[in-house]
């Protein structure tokens, strides 16, 4: 797929839609598009990964291994979302495994190319990292909400009516 088509795709994705035109051009030039069949392991927890992925279509899941529990699915991600940020920020040592839950289409950007672009062009680096920070911030808030366990039933029956109202 040529860069102009990729640029058009990136314009439509939530992660990259707000990027300035010249940044989009550079990102498109450093990217390819890839089909991922359901069940494919894209990268494994503890392993290395050289790419940043932006989901165009389909759904990916992040899983972490827990002794005695196996692979625990902690998050699913859909169109417009980013996967594999550790490749860019942490030299590719992955903190979770990523698996395609259904047939998916992703934009793949080589992390080393992105790092080179960031170093060579601070504007590019600023805008890319701004989007990355925004995406990670949303993911952090979502994780906090998960931790709050808001839908858990009261662990012990409450003795008075105060906490019993359910209207």
């Amino acid at each position: 797929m040529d860069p102009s088509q990729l640029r058009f795709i990136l314009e439509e994705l939530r992660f990259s839609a707000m990027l300035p035109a010249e940044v989009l051009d550079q990102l498109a030039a450093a990217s390819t598009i890839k089909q991922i069949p359901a069940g494919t392991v894209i990268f494994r927890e503890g392993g290395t990964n050289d790419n940043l992925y932006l989901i165009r279509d389909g759904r990916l899941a992040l899983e972490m291994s827990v002794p005695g529990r196996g692979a625990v699915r902690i998050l699913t991600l859909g169109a417009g979302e980013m996967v594999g940020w550790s490749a860019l920020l942490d030299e590719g040592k992955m903190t979770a495994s990523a698996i395609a839950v259904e047939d998916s289409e992703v934009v793949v950007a080589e992390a080393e190319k992105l790092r080179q672009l960031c170093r060579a062009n601070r504007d590019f680096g600023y805008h890319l990292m701004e989007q990355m920070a925004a995406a990670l911030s949303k993911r952090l808030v979502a994780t906090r909400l998960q931790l709050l366990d808001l839908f858990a039933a009261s662990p012990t029956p409450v003795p008075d009516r105060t906490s019993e109202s359910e209207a």
Partner: protein
Amino acid sequence: MSSSYVAPLPDPRLATDPWRASTVAIRAVRPEVEGVSTYDLAFQDEAVRASYRFAPGQFNMLYLPGAGEIAISISDDPRNTATCAHTIRVAGNVTRTLAGMKVGDTLGLRGPFGTSWPLAECIGRDVVLVTGGIGLAPIRPAICALLHQRRQFGRLNLLYGARSPDTLLYAREYDDWSERGLIVHTTVDRSALGWMGNVGVVTLLLERLRSFDPRNTVLFCCGPEVMMRFTVLTALNRGMSPEQIWISMERNMQCAVGLCGHCQLGPDFICKDGPVFRYDRIAPFLDVEGL
């Protein structure tokens, strides 16, 4: 749209005496998920049954002699006049007592009380229902009403989050809702073996919602207050205005008519001025610690 869904037909007796409880019998008990059951209640007095109407979003006060009284959202189809369903989680003395009752047992019911979901405002517009946990119960009557007059509305999306796959409320109804034109999106906070659906908080579903026109959408939200706060933030970030967002509040409602003050929130009483509020009206009081 039938006006009965927009504003309840008042029972004249309730208008003069909101304290008077009618006797209802448990007609059926349906276990939903662990610790949660739906109780179909039938009025014993035929005249009361014939005149009783409610609007989606309203609640009843259920009175169990010797245990107490509790506010419970109505979770039935508003067109159902034979019985009135309430989906209830065991949480304290009254609900625990209720959980020990069986079909044929009787209790007292006052109601309906409170404001309702603004279905008239949804005509010609898209509707997004965002809910979590047992918060789906007060939304269910709105779903029934929207689907009953499906052609009057644009896209209908239900975004529902639960703790785990086995706690998804009314799961047996999703296929029917989907066939009738409601797009059902579910997610769970904690996955389980074999679960192929979404994992993550319900606000993420709103982030991802495609074919979303923020200028022509009405959003209803019901669930834990923290969930609603972040849902509203997401909706505002996606371009909705506070006037398009409605939330159902929960407080300690005891009298149901705005006299006892237990459910006061700022200048409002949740029982009388709510539980359904337009967001801009209630927003200043949501983040105040202690309210």
